[in-house]
């Protein structure tokens, strides 16, 4: 019996030691070929792009959000405005599917704000289900090059 128990404990020790607790992560898929603006076919551009401007304070915190040049108070309002714009249908050929969001961010802005903005425009959680809004996201070129 003893050899078996030895082996069993060794096995257990091995599995316990090699256990890694991995936090759940997810991706926002962004497709950005170089020179996308010029390459985009005109018939895809039925709906003008939504321009979201995120400005930053010198310390990197968020100073203000603008959607198509009109000020927005917070990310929740941004989501409401996006829902107003694209409606609630999110099928393959819906307005949400054709609309594109262009993020114009200050160089020093903390990246977490960008993720919050993408979260606001790309979907909402309704009753535990994710309802997709705008999926096409692109960035304007970075403003300052170090």
């Amino acid at each position, binding site marked *: *019996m003893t050899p078996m128990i030895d082996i069993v404990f060794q096995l257990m020790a091995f599995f316990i030691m090699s256990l890694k607790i991995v936090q759940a992560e997810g991706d926002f898929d962004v497709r950005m070929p170089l020179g996308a603006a010029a390459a985009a076919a005109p018939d895809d551009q039925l709906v003008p792009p939504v321009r979201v401007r995120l400005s930053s304070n010198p310390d990197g915190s968020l100073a203000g959000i603008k959607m198509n040049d009109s000020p927005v108070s917070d990310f929740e309002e941004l989501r409401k405005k996006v829902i107003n714009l694209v409606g609630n249908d999110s099928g393959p050929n819906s307005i949400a599917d054709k609309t594109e969001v262009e993020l114009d961010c200050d160089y020093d802005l903390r990246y977490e704000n960008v993720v919050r903005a993408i979260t606001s425009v790309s979907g909402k959680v309704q009753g535990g289900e994710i309802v997709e809004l705008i999926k096409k996201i692109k960035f304007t070129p970075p403003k300052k090059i170090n």
Partner: protein
Amino acid sequence: MARKKSRGPANTDIDMTPMIDMTFQLIAFFMFVINFTEAEQDERIQLPSSQLAKPTEGTIETPITLQLTNSGLVVYAGELVKVSDLRGYLEREKTAMIDADKEPTSATVIVRADGRAKTGEVQDIIKLCQEKGFERFALRAKYDEGH
């Protein structure tokens, strides 16, 4: 109360069955939970959280993971490199892909950037990747169940 006198080294056989049952259950549990996939997670990076960042199903074809730290350095294949030095590494990735008969456009660049990093630096990385012909990006975030 009268006690039975023990006679020297008694036959002390313990019933091992429950312990072995338990141990096997534990082994089975750890075997299920264990994850051998090389998930590139660096503890230096605190990902921003998002309730829409649901874990992806399936595997990403030819992933290239670039992790941007708070201080503006990139963790590439376990090494800390400057954003400006990334060009050479990306060129190597591109050559490796072409050698393997794959288009750089089919690769996915996984950007694991720290929530406190500068957006401009993330964009610089994306721009460098674009120059090398990569166009699929996955901006990674921590899945946040709350609110």
